[in-house]
C-alpha cells in the first residue's frame, strides 16, 4: 500500500497556491542553496526551465539529457500555442475560466487545486517567456496577438507562427545555457538515466549510461527531478520523437514511485497516415482542417477508382451520416473512433488501408480555391512535402495518431512523488490534465512546473534534510550500478535473430489493437496475454549487434523497448480496471447512445496509482480519491 498524501492546501481554491507558499512551504536560504545538489533528468520545457530556475537560485544543479544538446527535446515540436488567461481580448477570460476549461476538458479526473494553480500561473509564463526574448506574434501596434484554439470560447492562445514549442524551448534552453556558463548547472548530454537510486526510502541519485562511451556511472544528489516526458511511443507509431521513452519513469516506478493513470493517452484524429510497414513516426496535421474538409471513405471495400472519380452515391460520409447534427466537427475522440471503425470494416483508403479521405473539394467550390488555400497554405504544403499529393487536387488522407499521455508518475501538490526527494514535472507526471488535455496547455504545464512551482516546492523538502550527506560510495549506488550493468549484459547476451526495432513495432501493434482508440474487456485481456508472450520472445530472440562499451543505438533502443513491454502491460491493466469511459479512455461497454464516453463518477472518481510489487507479480492498485468542491461534476456535453 502506498502512502499517498496529496498535500492539498486547506484553503479556498482561489488563493490555495499563495496560502500554500506562505504557510506550508519552508525555504532554503541563499547561502545554503549551493550545498544542495539537485539532479534534473530531461531538458525539455519542464527540465530546462526547472534546471535554469534552480541554478539561478543558487542550487547546485546537474542536468542530464540523452540528446546531443538540451535544445533538441521534443517540446520543440509543439506547434499550436500556449494558453494564458491574460484576457487581453477582453472577451471574458479569467483564471477561473481557464481552470474550468481545463478541468472540464480533462473530464473531471484531475485534482482541482492543481488545475487552478496551473491556470493562475499561466499569465506569469507569458511574462517570463517574453522577458527571455521569445518572439510571440504581435499585432500592429506591437501588442501580443492571440488566437482561439481547441474549441474554447475565448481567444487566449499565444503563438509564434506554427513553432511555439520551439521558441519557448529555445527560451528555456537559453536560460539553461546562461546557468551552465555561470557554472551553476552542469550539463550532461548524451547520457541516459537507467535507474533511480533509493536509500532509506529517499531518492538519492541516478545511474546513467554515457551513450557515447557506454560507461555506466552513478550520480548522488539531495533530490532528483524527472522531466522525462510522455510514453506515447509505447504504440511505436506516435507523434512523439523517436527517442521519447518511458524508461526513466518506469525505473522510478520499479523503485517505488506510484504510476498514475497510465491508460490515459490522447489520440489526435488528424495525422498523416502510415504509408507502409517501414513507417517510423506520424506527423500531426492541425485539427482546424476539419472546419472545411469533408471526411469520407468509399462505400465499397473493393473500390479501385481514384477518389475524384468516385461518384457521390458511392461515397460514405460516415460522420455526416452517423452524427447528422455535428457532422465532421464531432469531438476529437469520436472522430478518431469512427475512423478506426470504418477502416476495421475494410473501407479504409491508402496503401495500408488505414486512412480516410479529408476532402476540400466542396469547400473549394463554395469559397473559392484562393480562400481555402490562404487559410491552410502551410498545412497543405506540409502535407504535400510528406505525401507528394496536392490536397487541392486530390483529397487528403488522414488517420488518428497517439499524441500525448496524460498519465505519469503520481505527484502531490508539491510535484513530489511518493518517494521522498523524487519529483516529476511536465508530461512525466499525471497532475493537471485529467483524462484528456485541452489544446495548447501542455507547454503551459511544463513551464508552470519548471519556472514557478518546483523552484519553490523543492526547498521545502531540502530544508528538512541535511545537505550532501551521501556520496556514490554508498553501497546502494554500487548495487544499482551492478544491476544496470547486468541488465545491459543480459540484453547483449540473448544473441537471437530479431532487432529491437521489430519487437517495438510488434508491441506497438498490440497496444494500438488492444489498448488504443477504444478498449473493451476482452480485447484488453487478450492484450494482457499477448504482451508477456512477446516479452518472452524478446528475451529469447533479441539480436543486438555491436559493443556495449561504444555508441550503440541498438542497445539504447532495446533497453527502452524492454521497459515499454513491461509498461504496456501496466497500461492494459489500468485500462481494464477503469471500467468506465472518461476523456480519452473509451471503454466500448460504457457509451451514450450517441457514442460518447459515459463517465461513472460514483465508482471511478479517483486517480489510479499503481505500485510495483516485483517481477512477475501483479502491481497493486492504490486510489487517490478526487473531490470536486469548486467545480461540481457535470456530464461532458459538447452538443449545446
Amino acid at each position: 500500500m502506498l502512502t499517498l498524501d496529496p498535500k492539498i492546501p486547506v484553503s479556498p481554491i482561489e488563493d490555495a497556491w499563495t496560502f500554500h507558499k506562505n504557510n506550508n512551504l519552508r525555504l532554503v536560504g541563499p547561502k545554503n542553496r549551493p550545498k544542495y545538489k539537485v539532479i534534473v533528468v530531461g531538458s525539455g520545457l519542464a527540465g530546462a526551465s526547472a534546471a535554469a530556475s534552480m541554478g539561478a537560485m543558487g542550487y547546485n544543479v546537474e542536468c542530464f539529457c540523452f540528446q546531443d544538446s538540451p535544445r533538441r527535446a521534443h517540446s520543440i515540436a509543439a506547434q499550436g500555442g500556449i494558453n494564458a488567461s491574460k484576457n487581453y481580448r477582453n472577451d471574458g477570460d479569467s483564471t477561473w475560466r481557464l481552470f474550468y476549461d481545463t478541468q472540464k476538458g480533462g473530464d473531471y479526473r484531475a485534482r482541482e487545486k492543481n488545475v487552478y494553480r496551473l491556470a493562475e500561473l499561466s499569465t506569469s509564463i507569458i511574462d517570463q517567456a517574453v522577458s527571455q526574448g521569445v518572439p510571440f506574434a504581435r499585432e500592429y501596434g506591437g501588442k501580443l496577438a492571440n488566437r482561439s484554439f481547441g474549441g474554447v470560447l475565448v481567444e487566449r492562445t499565444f503563438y509564434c507562427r506554427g513553432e511555439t514549442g520551439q521558441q519557448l524551448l529555445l527560451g528555456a534552453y537559453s536560460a539553461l545555457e546562461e546557468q551552465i556558463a555561470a557554472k551553476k548547472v552542469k550539463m550532461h548530454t548524451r547520457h541516459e538515466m537507467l535507474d533511480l537510486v533509493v536509500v532509506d526510502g529517499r531518492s538519492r541519485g541516478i545511474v546513467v549510461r554515457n551513450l557515447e562511451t557506454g560507461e555506466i556511472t552513478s550520480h548522488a544528489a539531495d533530490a532528483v527531478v524527472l522531466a522525462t516526458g510522455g510514453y506515447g511511443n509505447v504504440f511505436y507509431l506516435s507523434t512523439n520523437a523517436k527517442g521519447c521513452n518511458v524508461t526513466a519513469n518506469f525505473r522510478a516506478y520499479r523503485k517505488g514511485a506510484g504510476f498514475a493513470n497510465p491508460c490515459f493517452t490522447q489520440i489526435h484524429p488528424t495525422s498523416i497516415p502510415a504509408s507502409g510497414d517501414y513507417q517510423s513516426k506520424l506527423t500531426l496535421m492541425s485539427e482546424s482542417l476539419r472546419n472545411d474538409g469533408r471526411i469520407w471513405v468509399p462505400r465499397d471495400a473493393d473500390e479501385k477508382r481514384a477518389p475524384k472519380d468516385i461518384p457521390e452515391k458511392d461515397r460514405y460520409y460516415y460522420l455526416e451520416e452517423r452524427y447528422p447534427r455535428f457532422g465532421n466537427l464531432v469531438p476529437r475522440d469520436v472522430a478518431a473512433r469512427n475512423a478506426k471503425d470504418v477502416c476495421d470494416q475494410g473501407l479504409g483508403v491508402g496503401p495500408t488501408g488505414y486512412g480516410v479521405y479529408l476532402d476540400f473539394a466542396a469547400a473549394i467550390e463554395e469559397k473559392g480555391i484562393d480562400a481555402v488555400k490562404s487559410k491552410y497554405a502551410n498545412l497543405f504544403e506540409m502535407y504535400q512535402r510528406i505525401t507528394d499529393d496536392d490536397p487541392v487536387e486530390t483529397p487528403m488522407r488522414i488517420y488518428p495518431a497517439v499524441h500525448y499521455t496524460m498519465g505519469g508518475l503520481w505527484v502531490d501538490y508539491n510535484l513530489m512523488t511518493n518517494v521522498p526527494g523524487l519529483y516529476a514535472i511536465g508530461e512525466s507526471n499525471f497532475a493537471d490534465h485529467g483524462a484528456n488535455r485541452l489544446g495548447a496547455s501542455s507547454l503551459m504545464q511544463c513551464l508552470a512546473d519548471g519556472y514557478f512551482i518546483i523552484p519553490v516546492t523543492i526547498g521545502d523538502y531540502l530544508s528538512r534534510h541535511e545537505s550532501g550527506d551521501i556520496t556514490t560510495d554508498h553501497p546502494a549506488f554500487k548495487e544499482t550500478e551492478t544491476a544496470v550493468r547486468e541488465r545491459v549484459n543480459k540484453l547483449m547476451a540473448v544473441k537471437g535473430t530479431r532487432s529491437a526495432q521489430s519487437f517495438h513495432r510488434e508491441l506497438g501493434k498490440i497496444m494500438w489493437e488492444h489498448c488504443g482508440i477504444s478498449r473493451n474487456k476482452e480485447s484488453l485481456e487478450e492484450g494482457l496475454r499477448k504482451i508477456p508472450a512477446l516479452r518472452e520472445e524478446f528475451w529469447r530472440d533479441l539480436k543486438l549487434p555491436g559493443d556495449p562499451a561504444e555508441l550503440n543505438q541498438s542497445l539504447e533502443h532495446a533497453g527502452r523497448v524492454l521497459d515499454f513491454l513491461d509498461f504496456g502491460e501496466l497500461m492494459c491493466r489500468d485500462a481494464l480496471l477503469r471500467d468506465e469511459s472518461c476523456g480519452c479512455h473509451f471503454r466500448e461497454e460504457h457509451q451514450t447512445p450517441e457514442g460518447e464516453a459515459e463517465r461513472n463518477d460514483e465508482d471511478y472518481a479517483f486517480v489510479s496509482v499503481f505500485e510495483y510489487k516485483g517481477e512477475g507479480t501483479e502491481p497493486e492498485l492504490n486510489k487517490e480519491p478526487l473531490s470536486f468542491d469548486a467545480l461540481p461534476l457535470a456530464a461532458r456535453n459538447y452538443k449545446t
Partner: protein
Amino acid sequence: MRIKLHVWRQSSRSDKGHMESYELDNVVEEMSFLEMMDTLNEKLTVEGKEPVAFDHDCREGVCGMCSMVINGEAHGPKSKTTTCQLYMRHFDDGAEIFIEPWRASAFPVVRDLVVDRSAFDRIIQAGGYVSNHSGPKPDPNSIPIEPNIAETALDAATCIGCGACVAACPNGSAMLFTSAKASHLGLLPQGQPERFDRAKSMVSQMESEGFGSCRNYAECEAQCPKGISIAFIGRLNSDFLKASLVEPIDRRGDMKAQ
C-alpha cells in the same frame, strides 16, 4: 526501388574512417530518407553486421538532430528540407547515394554519421541569452514591439541549430548560426542591454571553437533547412564592428578622471 549507398563508417572519434557500400532493393518511394536508413540498419542487424549510427529524433524537421551530407549537400538535394523530411521519391531508381557526416574540425565525428555539435551550445553559453531569473516580470504589452521586428526576430529564431550551415560552407564557418542567434535577441528590446557584448563574446567563442571564416558564398543560406538569410550575418558584422570600434569599452568610463 533499388539504390546503392556509400556510407561513411567510423567506429570512434580516433578511428580514421572509410566509405562503405551497400545495396538496398526493398526501398519504396514513400519512405522518408531516415526510414530508408532504418531499413538498411534492420538488414545489417539481421545479417549480424553493425548498423549505421546516425542522429535523429523528432523526424518532423524541428529538433535539428538529423545531420547527413547527402550527395554532397547538407540534408540532401531538396532545399529548405531536413534529412528527416526528405523522401525517397526525390531519388531515381538505381540511384547511387553518398552519405557523409558534417565535416568540420569543430564538429568531430563521434561514430559513423554522428558528430559532436557541443560547440554550438558553447557559443550560446557565451551570450546567446537574455540574462534573466525566473520570477515576476512586467506585462509584455508594456513594451510594445513593432510586428515586423518581432517577425524578423522570429525569422532568425527559426534556426534549429542543426549545423547544416557549417557543413555546407566551403570554409566550415558558423557565421549563419551565430548571427541568427545574436540577431534574434539583438532585434528585440529585451536583448538590447547586452547586444554589443553579446556580439563580441559569441563571435570570440565561435572563433575559439575552430570554425572557419565567412567568405560570403551564401552556400549556408541555400542549404539551411529553414532558409535563414545571410542578411543576419551582415547584421552581426555590423554589431560586431560597432562593439569593437564605437561602443565604449567600459560604460562606467565617464566617471574616471579624464
